[in-house]
């Protein structure tokens, strides 16, 4: 239980970020540390000016999937950003931006939501990951 859960978030759609936030909060509740590495479109979704916007859904969701997600949202489902905030309050959750993706998107650290703890390269991510599983979403 002491090995961290390591999530590499690549996709920036709300459904995949919601799934990642659920995994994170569950691990935090169990006392398992979580390292999150934000790449590409996932990093874009963590921009301070974008985090509360609609980020769409994965293509396989289709119209029915859209309606199902909208129904959950309407029923008061906690957003992925708020779920991550609560997970950080509860346990050890470190969220790092991939430095290559920062360059790609022309971002500076101050462009990111406070949920993001810092910027690092892939080597630092692997070092922190230790023997824990790495999950790519």
């Amino acid at each position, binding site marked *: 239980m002491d090995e961290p859960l390591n999530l590499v978030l690549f996709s920036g759609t709300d459904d995949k970020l919601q799934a990642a936030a659920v995994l994170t909060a569950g691990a935090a509740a169990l006392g398992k540390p979580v390292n999150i590495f934000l790449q590409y479109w996932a990093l874009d979704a963590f921009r301070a000016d974008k985090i509360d916007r609609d980020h769409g859904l994965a293509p396989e969701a289709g119209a029915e999937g859209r309606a199902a997600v909208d129904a959950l949202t309407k029923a008061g489902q906690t957003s992925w950003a708020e779920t991550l905030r609560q997970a950080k309050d*509860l346990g050890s959750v470190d969220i790092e931006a991939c430095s290559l993706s920062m360059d790609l998107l022309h971002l500076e650290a101050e462009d990111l939501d406070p949920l993001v703890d810092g910027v690092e390269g892939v080597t630092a991510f692997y070092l922190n990951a230790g023997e824990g599983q790495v999950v790519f979403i």
Partner: protein
Amino acid sequence: MGVVEIDQLVDARGLSCPMPIVKTAQAVKALTSGSVVELLATDPGSIKDVAAWCKSTGNELVEQTSDGAVYRFVIRRK
């Protein structure tokens, strides 16, 4: 049946996974050892989740009941 004194109620009715567990973990964390939390949830996943969470964290699941719509759990902090 003995009556267990509840120190804190966590009302997670209407909340979807993983919020019932997140709210419970937050409440338990803020209490002292031996304190008792009552959790109310409507998420059907909470039956297995609460049991798994208690097993993993060492907190005691004292009671688990359901009226069909709402699941009720009583948890004692280790």
